[in-house]
């Protein structure tokens, strides 16, 4: 297996450890004065026995909402990750045997630089940012999640996509030994998702490695996952092992499973209902008396990120391209 760093990072761009440490102390100093926000402290109720490590050098990125984030417990015990089972608590309960380290990602297709990269190589030279995003599930519930990651566009451009790169296809790892959900063919494995090149390089789109300042727990898609906050949650493919740049749109897992219910775009849209339920409102997990009377709030077009992404879809009939 060939493991190398992208060839196109000039050594001048690679931060030396001393500069890096120095920058950290500067940022910490600024944070103390309140001039620069830093990542929130790791939650003190981290489960014992998990391998979550604090991520160093996380700065506070743009586009964050000031809505109060959901608890670490909500975010890590209520998940849709069918590779670990279809129940909401299955990923939390069944992902203990999953090994997110070591991890390599295959970059292939329409790019000048391709190959197999370890996660560190893939992300080296791009600063980790905390982005507090709204997460709207296609099942009409939502959370506020403080992700840690890097803009996908920053990563992609280093592979120098060719002019034929119109789409990016992602694939989740296939490990039925460690992912009990993959032993049954609930969806076609491995899970596949995709974005147009414009969507992939939009500054909102994140390649996330952490949540609440620590590395991603297995149930949240360790070690590397996609975050596309203006789309329904299922677009946020988890535990990515392959990134392929290509000319044609990939067939995506949920679209294959139920084409009338889940389209390629899957933009959050309160006006286009799922055939079996309304998308006009959403249940905000964690609110209202321990969630028992969780607030139902109106769903926003593009999940409230229209300012950043609406222009991507001008002229597109969103009712047909759901």
């Amino acid at each position, binding site marked *: 297996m060939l493991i190398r760093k992208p060839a196109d990072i000039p050594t001048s761009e690679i931060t030396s450890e001393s500069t890096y440490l120095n920058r950290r102390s500067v940022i910490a100093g600024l944070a103390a004065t309140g001039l620069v926000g830093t990542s929130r402290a790791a939650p003190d109720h981290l489960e014992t026995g998990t391998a979550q490590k604090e991520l160093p050098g996380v700065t506070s990125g743009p586009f964050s909402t000031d809505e109060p984030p*959901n608890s670490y*417990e*909500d975010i890590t*015990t*209520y998940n849709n990750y*069918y590779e670990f089972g*279809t129940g*909401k*608590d299955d990923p939390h309960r069944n992902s203990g045997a999953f090994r997110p380290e070591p991890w390599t990602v295959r970059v292939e297709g329409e790019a000048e630089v391709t190959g197999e990269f370890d996660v560190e190589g893939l992300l080296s030279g791009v600063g980790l940012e905390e982005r507090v995003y709204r997460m709207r599930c296609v*099942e009409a*519930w939502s959370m506020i999640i403080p992700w840690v990651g890097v803009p996908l566009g920053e990563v992609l451009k280093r592979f120098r996509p060719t002019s034929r790169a119109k789409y990016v296809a992602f694939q989740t790892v296939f490990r039925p030994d460690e992912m009990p959900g993959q032993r*049954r063919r*609930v*969806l076609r494995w491995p899970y596949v998702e995709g974005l147009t090149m414009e969507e992939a390089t939009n500054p909102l789109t994140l390649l996330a490695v952490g949540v609440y300042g620590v590395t991603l727990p297995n149930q949240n898609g360790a070690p590397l996952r996609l975050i596309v906050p203006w789309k329904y949650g299922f677009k946020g493919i988890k535990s990515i092992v392959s990134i392929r740049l290509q000319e044609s749109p990939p067939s995506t897992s*949920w679209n294959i*499973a*139920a084409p009338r219910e889940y389209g390629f775009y899957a933009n959050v849209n309160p006006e286009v*209902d799922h055939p*079996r*339920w*309304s998308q006009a*409102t959403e*249940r905000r*997990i*964690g609110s209202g008396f*321990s*969630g*028992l*009377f*969780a607030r*139902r709030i109106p769903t926003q077009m593009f999940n409230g990120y229209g300012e950043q992404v609406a222009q991507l879809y001008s002229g597109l009939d969103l009712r047909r391209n759901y």
Partner: protein
Amino acid sequence: MNTRVYKPLLFAACLAPVIWLVLRIAGVLQPGLGANPAEEIQDELGVWALRLLLATLCVTPAARLLKKPRLYRFRRMLGLYAFFYCMLHPLAYFLLDLQLDFAHLGEDLLARTFITVGMGAVLLLIPLAITSTRGWQRRLGRRWNRLHRLIYPAAVLACWHFYWQVKADTAEPLLYCAILALLLGIRFWWSPLRGRLFRGG
């Protein structure tokens, strides 16, 4: 079989899922209800409604196959409990999920087919619950039996409702559908309808 012992036992057993749920809501019992308690409560009540509907439908075949006619004494209680859970399930949906939003309820009933189907099941069970008393049984005579066959379409709608709200993993709803098919199939096998349909065959 001592009915005086078994009836209270069955009563308590049928009530157990509600008590279990209340204790989980109160945080006394684990596992808790998780991040989306309203959904968990709805799902639990719904699946118990379906289980009790199927349990009610088990009584007749069981009594016949085991030659234990005394089992019929438990049918009313099971049926009423099925109705009880069939009422609590949409009540939880309306109270916790929709939070008394009547407009949303109206829209859901009209536009969301799986909810329409589920509501149909509940409506079919209402006359059965009302006429479940001995008095009504006497008054209706033979028509009582015919009326109470409404539990068959109600159970079909309930299974359909379950199957339709699942996103991809249809294993559990299909299991309930299979049990229902078996319970209805055995009745068809026993019914004069079969003889009429397949005469000369």
